[in-house]
């Protein structure tokens, strides 16, 4: 898996810029996401990882060139980009708290909702909670809803932003298991602060600093090099903890 020659790209980001008000957050970010496996997008806090994912699906004001399977998507609306095949799991889960678990899922899959086979397969806990309001779920359960929601659609690529943030070690492992399983069939661009988890499931890494990509390469190599991780990622990364 940890082959240094990545598969052909499913997503190519070229010279991506994002301005928020007067700040130039992304200053020409360029990278490819291989068509298989997990690519981890890393960087210090506040460097623009979330912004990069948002820019890709059109939730941040952007310029530059973004192609999915070779087709330009940078001028399309978010809902269109998502239907073209990019699933997005946002940083803070953003489940619809006033809707039930089933309703959250039916937004994406009106006919099956919680009855879709993938739910029973990967998120069995949700099946029994189908009529519970998502706002009353625990953080881990909400994360499962947020993940399940995007998996109800066929995706060419998943953008997943800090799925283990704020979760207890046991739940971190559960989420990692789900991600590893999903990655067998769908490439993932993953923002993640938990280095053991990155080592376990990521193949490639892309590191952003000061608005640009400063490192690309093999995930295991980076994680195995404390001096390099310290230099690129500072102290923000969690070195220990379950994965």
């Amino acid at each position, binding site marked *: 898996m940890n082959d240094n020659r990545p598969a052909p790209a499913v997503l190519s980001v070229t010279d991506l810029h994002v301005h928020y008000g007067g700040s130039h957050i992304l200053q020409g970010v360029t990278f490819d996401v291989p068509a298989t496996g997990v690519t981890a997008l890393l960087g210090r806090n506040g460097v623009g990882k979330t912004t990069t994912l948002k820019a890709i699906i059109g939730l941040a004001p952007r310029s530059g060139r973004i192609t999915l399977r070779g087709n330009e998507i940078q001028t399309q609306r*978010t809902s269109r980009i*998502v239907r073209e095949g990019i699933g997005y799991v946002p940083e803070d889960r953003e489940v*619809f708290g006033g809707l039930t678990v089933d*309703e959250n899922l039916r*937004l*994406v899959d009106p006919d099956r909702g919680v009855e879709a086979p993938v739910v029973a397969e990967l998120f069995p806990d949700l099946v029994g909670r189908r009529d519970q309001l998502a706002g009353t779920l625990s953080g881990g359960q909400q994360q499962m809803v947020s993940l399940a929601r*995007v998996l109800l659609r066929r995706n060419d690529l998943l953008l997943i932003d800090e799925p283990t943030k704020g979760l207890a070690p046991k739940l971190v492992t559960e989420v990692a298991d789900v991600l590893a399983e999903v990655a067998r069939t769908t490439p993932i661009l993953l923002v993640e602060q938990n280095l053991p988890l990155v080592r376990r499931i990521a193949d490639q890494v892309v590191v952003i600093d000061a608005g640009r990509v400063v490192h690309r390469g093999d995930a295991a190599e980076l994680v195995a090099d404390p001096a390099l991780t310290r230099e690129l990622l500072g102290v923000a990364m969690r070195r220990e903890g379950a994965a």
Partner: protein
Amino acid sequence: MSDLLLLLVTGLGLGALYFLAASGLSLIYGLMGVLNFAHGVFMTAGAYAGWLTMGDLPQSLPVGARLAVGVVVAIAVGAVIGLVVEVVLIRPLYRHHIQQVLVTVGLSLAGVAAAQGIWGADPRPVETPTWMSGTTVVLGARLPNDRFVYIAVALLLLAGLLALLRYTRLGLVIRAGVENRTMVEALGIDVQRTFTIVFAIGGAAAGLAGVLYSQYAGAVSPGQGGSLLIYAFIVVVIGGMGSLTGTAVAAVVVGLVQQLANYYAASGVGDLSVVLLLALVLLLRPSSLKGATA
């Protein structure tokens, strides 16, 4: 006792009209965050559409039948205006709230001026079915029949909208969109299309409100929708900005308070008491400025 019953029924009738006027406003604000100041013009358009239809239909038809057709036309006109306004004026200004306010205020001024230019500034009397202008005696109180019509129509609209929100795909998308529009879009759902549909539904409700309000007033006039709109806004704010059941409860409370104050204090105090009620709600519950459906 019979006085009180009369006041309750007339107050509820007024509340029903307020709900009809406020429901579309509340739906649109809840989902899109748009304060639609043109809603009054939607109502005026409905009123004139109903009046014109009733005048154009063969006078040999009973008034009730012509009114029924007028109501259908008013609803359709309201829906079409809502749809066109959303597509042409609101959509380009998505996220520009100040500009949206300016555009909808401008539209309402232009609409009133246009109605004045075409049909004159004076109120034009509308025909009312005999039964609706009559009364029914209940427990010694002579209750105006038209109020029962407003109450029944408002209940039907409330039930219809709640069913739409609860049991349909569109309703699910609206409820989700009220919570978090961006995330709905990020799940691959075209929220813009939903906005257009909701604006059309809001316009249809406004058309219905307009034509029934003209029955209540006995006339159509260019400024009619605008004056009803003020109460509709108050109702929407008291009801929690975007909550449909909140809007219904607030409409009933406002209608009753206004009617009771007018009777027990002095005529005109009703309006004042409504404003006081609004101030009280805003002071005690500032969170009512946030949105939530159903």
